[in-house]
């Protein structure tokens, strides 16, 4: 792990994703009385409680009942409101998954699903509370926009931006102990437009969520060894920024995807589909949780185990640089 970035100690002045979510939502609520909140006994854990403190008549806590959570959110949206529904990621995509699909997405309702404790962020809670399936599930739901901010500042921007998304919206954040990627909010964030954080010509890392910072740290470390790595923050998983992927293919011809998700069905597969459909060749590796159940442990230990930290990412970059790819000097004329 890069120096100065740990998951359990961070600059307290820089708010975490979860904290920022609740704060921004409360701010938005001041100017938009259509915004309401719904949660399932996780008002405190998901930080939507900040909104409820400010607007007690606009936060509905349905108790430990996630199917009802999303059904109620759909019903609220049907009356013209913009509900923010919050629970842990695993319960959003699976326990209440059919309600998300049938009540919210099928009816194309503007429910904003803010799923916290995603990936391995609730490490010690164990596999029941890890969530490495949500990208795959939410991507496959028609009408759904899927965003995975890399830190609290991106979360703030995504929460503000999602109000203008006309249909359903899924955002996954961690538990709130993630170190920030950005120093402040002075950067451009557009849903559907990837963010290039580091230029490079040997290989491109395309990452989303918590691993973005680690990818950036890895790129910086690798630069010192003379390896030039581009880092793309693919914060919007759906709709994916195909142009950013294809630019990476054309410019670097080697792509590593990094995600806190099962290697099946998530960012890696989304990027792979763009590449395959383009007809262009590319050396390619997906880094994520193998197709198995994650073990118990503190997040930093789990990220190290699954090579989602800067060290693991740098190692994988080197492996991928050693992969042979078919040379084709004229490939830019294939358009």
């Amino acid at each position, binding site marked *: 792990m890069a120096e100065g970035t740990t998951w359990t100690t961070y600059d307290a002045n820089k708010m975490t994703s979860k904290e920022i979510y609740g704060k921004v939502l409360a701010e938005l609520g001041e100017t938009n009385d259509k915004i*309401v909140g*719904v949660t399932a006994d996780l008002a405190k854990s998901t930080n939507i409680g900040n909104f409820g403190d400010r607007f007690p*008549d*606009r936060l*509905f806590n*349905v*108790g430990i*009942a996630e*199917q*009802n959570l*999303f*059904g*109620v*959110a*759909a*019903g*609220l*949206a*049907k*009356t*013209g*409101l913009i*509900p923010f529904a919050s629970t842990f990621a695993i319960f959003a995509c699976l326990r209440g998954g*059919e*309600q998300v699909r*049938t*009540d919210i997405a*099928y*009816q*194309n309702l503007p429910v904003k699903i803010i799923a916290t404790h995603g990936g391995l962020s609730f490490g010690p809670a164990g596999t029941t509370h890890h969530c490495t399936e949500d990208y795959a599930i939410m991507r496959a739901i028609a009408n759904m926009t899927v965003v995975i901010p890399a830190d609290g500042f991106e979360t703030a921007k995504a929460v503000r931006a999602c109000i203008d998304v006309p249909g359903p919206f899924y955002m996954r954040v961690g538990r709130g102990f993630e170190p920030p990627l950005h120093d402040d909010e002075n950067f451009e964030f557009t849903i559907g437009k990837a963010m290039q954080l580091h230029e490079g010509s040997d290989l491109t890392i395309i990452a989303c969520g918590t691993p973005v910072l680690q990818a950036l740290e890895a790129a910086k470390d690798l630069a010192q060894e003379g390896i030039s790595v581009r880092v793309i923050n693919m914060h919007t998983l759906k709709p994916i920024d195909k142009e950013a992927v294809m630019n990476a293919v054309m410019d670097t011809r080697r792509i590593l995807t990094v995600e806190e998700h099962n290697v099946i069905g998530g960012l890696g597969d989304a990027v792979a589909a763009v590449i395959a459909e383009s007809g262009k060749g590319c050396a390619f590796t997906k880094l994520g949780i193998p197709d198995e159940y994650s073990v118990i442990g503190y997040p930093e230990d789990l990220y190290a185990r699954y090579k989602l930290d800067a060290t693991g990412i740098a190692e994988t970059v080197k492996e991928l640089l050693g992969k042979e790819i078919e040379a084709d000097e004229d490939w830019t004329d294939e358009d």
Partner: protein
Amino acid sequence: MPKDVSVQKLKQKAKELRLNIVKTANFAGSGHVGGSLSCADVLAALYFKYLNVNPEDPAMFDRDRFILSKGHCALAYVPCLAMAGFVPMESLEHFNHYESPYGMHPDSKKVRGCDASTGSLGHGLPMGVGMALGLRYQKTDAKVVVLMGDGEQNEGSVWEAAMAAHHFKLKNLIAIVDRNKMMIDGRTEDVMGIDPIDKKYEAFGFEVITCNGNDMNEVDAALAKAWSNDTDKPVCIISQTEKGFGVKKFQGNVKWHYGAMNSDLFKEAVADIEAMD
């Protein structure tokens, strides 16, 4: 406020709806005739007397909301919406056909006047709770009516929503259970018993009203009572019905949960309904 419509007129509407149900089943090739016929009286009373809805302005904000939580009975719901002027009567001829707006389960994006897409059981009451909360927050007195099946009561999400309806004191919510006592695999009490269903809703904090759901006098009285609910509790009407009511061969016959009629049976069904009071 409910409209001033006589019980006799509502009976005629229910009879007309039953005829349209079997005709639509005939256009469609098959359908959930049993559960559609059992709830025809309640639907007729709602759409021709109680619900404040407007076919000229289906999205009117202050309208009452209706959710057909037993979505498989779109075969009754869509003809009812046609009779109420929301969709053209002749469009029923395309029910279930390729690219038709009407299938076995209603799609709110395609069926004019339909407030919720349903079909997966146990989804209507949670959405109804959300609508009731949203309408109250936006300060309208509109009511939300959710018509559920009795087999549907097996779904856990029904009880999650029931708990919330009482907790949030949703006196603007009316749940109706079409208690026709049958589900696909047989009698409800054999497959998965739900009785005493009235006591269950009472225990969950509902104001419970029981009626014979195939007797328009009783349906009208039950809905009148529900509409004038002066408690701070949600209402549940247990509508005791007979599956397939109105057609002798379907009545109380579990085989007619879903089916297709040949031309002789279709004629027989029409004749049975025409002979009703």
